[in-house]
């Protein structure tokens, strides 16, 4: 079974530029999550989708971050304009359950460096 796919794996940009990350969840998984993992910290939830609807985006900095999952399958996370403090690994995860049971399947992440 294919796992959660993310791209690009690495991205280096200058502050005020924009960047987009893509995620393809495990086939059939209705729920998709984006997490931000800053160096030395645990992952923090940015946004949760169920199919193509947003369930929780309370911790998403909406002035610069946006995310969509238009067809209820793959998803993109965009940052515009980027700040130095956005340097982090962006993790995508999926699960087959509508409710967060705690059992998530993670991709390998997209590492962003903002200079």
């Amino acid at each position, binding site marked *: 079974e294919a*796992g959660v796919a993310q791209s690009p794996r690495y991205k280096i940009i200058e502050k005020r530029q924009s960047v987009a990350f893509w995620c393809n969840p495990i086939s059939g998984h209705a729920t998709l999550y984006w997490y931000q993992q800053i160096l*030395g910290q*645990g992952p*923090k*939830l940015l946004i949760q989708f169920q199919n193509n609807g947003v369930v929780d985006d309370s911790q998403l900095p909406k002035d610069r971050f946006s995310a969509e999952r238009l067809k209820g399958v793959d998803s993109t996370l965009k940052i515009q304009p980027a700040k130095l403090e956005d340097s982090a690994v962006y993790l995508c995860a999926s699960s087959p359950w509508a*409710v967060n049971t705690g*059992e998530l*399947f993670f991709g*390998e992440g997209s590492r962003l460096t903002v200079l």
Partner: protein
Amino acid sequence: AQSVTQLDSHVSVSEGTPVLLRCNYSSSYSPSLFWYVQHPNKGLQLLLKYTSAATLVKGINGFEAEFKKSETSFHLTKPSAHMSDAAEYFCVVNLLAGGGSQGNLIFGKGTKLSVKP
């Protein structure tokens, strides 16, 4: 508020010796607790979970954890470390158990496990 505290940022053991990674939680409700493992440049993987059944939980690769309500702890152990166990380990609490409508995982800051030959 619910939270987890991983007491050690870095643990180093010799191959073949026991592993102990410590985690304390804070919760107003009976929590669901998890350990995830992250190998270098790999995605997080669920190691084991506690969801109010047996207090001693067995996971993959010989790891286990014991839920102790009186001590608000959920320490991760393994009798004998292997080189392949070198990774970062995260203790996680699920807010769903606290009445959240959708659940949200709160991750600890992680413990990096090094295994010496």
